[in-house]
């Protein structure tokens, strides 16, 4: 049962895909050279000009872009089109230092929505479906991306956004939602609620498209069992547009990267050297069709493996494994990017020692974040109410910085292990 949104693209021959990539890459490099002085300077520093890039084989000659570049160039430094031609921004949840703001022309939005539409159709979506989008709407790309994809497929789209579980379940039962799009942890939470409330017979879900955070095969199995659906993974990042950079097909053995829009490479995160197919390394994307935010060789920091083994679904686009980790210290908690350095900044600002420990866990399929903080002399009082007041201020400051709630646990001074070597700042107990 082949489900394709754009069959001529999704099942194109390898030669055809490569031809598209060669042509689009050459054009994109010229576009960037002419319009993005920041990247042009990086190319000049490396002694590369657009004339050196004749095909995908030359891609390795181009300099990388990293999150630091995005920060340096914030907000307009990497734009490929004037603001007057842009129609939208989306942004990561990060804070001043790490925030990524991505720009889109109408053309960019169209292509992004096409990518999401491919994911929805691959999950069995048709115009007869009721697509229930419980990703957050707003600056976060999840809601707008899947919403647009759902429109393209012609599904009846329920722009639920996240939260208010009671209303989610009411719409789901009353309007007969058939496809659920949200983070896997929220899907697990909804599944649990449906199970507890005995609503299983009243829901018509057949598939789920879950992304924006890491999830395990056990979690997939659990959600599939509880909801009686097939659960599909989807991948993306704001820097490259949002969800839909890659998505799972019926085989559920990896996510097909939309290679007509993105060229994927796997590199050694230490040396930057490109690794052969099948190697584990850092995923790097080059956007070859984006106009407003055309990132070349963007280092995602996600560690994964690519494979071009033929897929039973008939799609010919390369597949990536689920990310197996990160090459930096970024944590993804409840779908939100969290850097330990952000927590450190808040602690110092609030007058606490920078000796801290972050404990991440997953309780009932939902991520939890706890920050262990050492008591400081000037934060101490003989009154518990005063200490609690200080603690509340810290919790609020962390929430403002991270965008998610972190439980604070105040411990004795100098009690957090200061090992001889590197401090253990993060304990991630999640089994993914």
């Amino acid at each position: 049962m082949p489900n394709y949104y754009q069959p001529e693209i999704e099942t194109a021959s390898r030669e055809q895909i490569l031809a598209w990539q060669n042509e689009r890459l050459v054009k994109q490099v010229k576009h960037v050279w002419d319009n993005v002085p920041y990247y042009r300077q990086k190319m000049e520093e490396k002694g590369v000009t657009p004339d050196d890039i004749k095909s995908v084989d030359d891609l390795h000659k181009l300099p990388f872009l990293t999150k630091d570049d995005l920060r340096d160039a914030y907000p307009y430094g990497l734009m490929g089109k004037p603001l007057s031609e842009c129609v939208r921004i989306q942004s990561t949840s990060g804070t001043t230092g790490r925030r990524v703001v991505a720009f889109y022309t109408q053309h960019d939005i169209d292509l992004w929505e096409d990518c999401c539409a491919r994911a929805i159709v691959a999950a069995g979506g048709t115009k007869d479906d009721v697509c229930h989008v419980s990703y957050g709407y707003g600056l976060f790309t999840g809601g707008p991306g899947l919403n647009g994809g759902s429109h393209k497929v012609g599904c009846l789209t329920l722009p639920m956004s996240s939260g208010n579980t009671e209303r989610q379940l009411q719409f789901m039962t009353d309007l007969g939602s058939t496809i659920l799009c949200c983070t896997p942890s929220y899907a697990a939470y909804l599944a649990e609620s449906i199970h507890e409330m005995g609503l299983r017979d009243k829901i018509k879900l057949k598939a789920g498209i879950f992304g924006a955070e890491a999830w395990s095969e056990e979690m997939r199995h659990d959600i599939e069992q509880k909801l009686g659906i097939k659960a599909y993974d989807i991948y993306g990042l704001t820097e490259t547009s949002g969800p839909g950079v890659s998505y799972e097909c019926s085989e559920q053995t990896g996510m097909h990267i939309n290679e007509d829009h993105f060229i994927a490479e796997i590199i050694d995160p230490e040396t930057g050297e490109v690794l052969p197919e099948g190697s584990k390394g850092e995923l790097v994307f080059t956007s070859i069709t984006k106009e407003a935010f055309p990132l070349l060789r963007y280092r995602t920091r996600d560690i994964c493996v690519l494979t071009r083994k033929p897929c039973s679904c008939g799609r010919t686009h390369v597949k990536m494994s689920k990310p197996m980790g990160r090459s930096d210290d970024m944590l993804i908690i409840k779908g939100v990017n969290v850097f330990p350095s952000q927590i450190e900044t808040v602690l110092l600002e609030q007058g606490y020692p920078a000796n801290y420990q972050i404990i991440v866990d997953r309780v009932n399929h939902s991520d939890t974040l706890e920050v262990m903080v050492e008591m400081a002399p000037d934060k101490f009082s003989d009154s518990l109410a005063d200490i609690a007041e200080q603690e509340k201020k810290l919790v609020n400051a962390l929430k403002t910085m991270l965008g998610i709630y972190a439980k604070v646990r105040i411990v004795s001074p100098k009690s957090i292990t200061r090992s001889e070597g590197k401090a253990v700042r993060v304990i991630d107990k999640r089994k993914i």
Partner: protein
Amino acid sequence: MSVHQISVFLENRAGQLAQITRLLADNAINMRAINIAETKDYGVLRLIVDDSEKATGVLLGAGCILNMTPVTVVVVPDEAGGLANVLDVLAEGNIDVDYMYSMFPHADGKACMVFRLKDENAFVSRLTAHGLHVATKAELGLK
């Protein structure tokens, strides 16, 4: 009139309190009053000891976080209604009390209550006007 209370940060972990009391014992410091206010994760240990300066040095040397808090000790008749009378006097005078706890018995068998106050002067004048006695350090045998 106030005496020194040592307030110590105490993480809610097995052995924390034992460590501190052992440390005081090893330095021949006698505790005259002890109180703990706690949350789930941590607490504040409030101590009155015979030699607060020495105790502070010992505890700081052991890496404790603490501060010295002025508190007021009131002698209360050791009989039914003894404390109630004192609190009635305070309530009628609109005197705020942050917290209070009892002290180990006074030499003459009278009970002592420790008060943490916002306004010690108002407290003392109100009580003495009603014939109640606020104890001095010397009377309590504290350095």
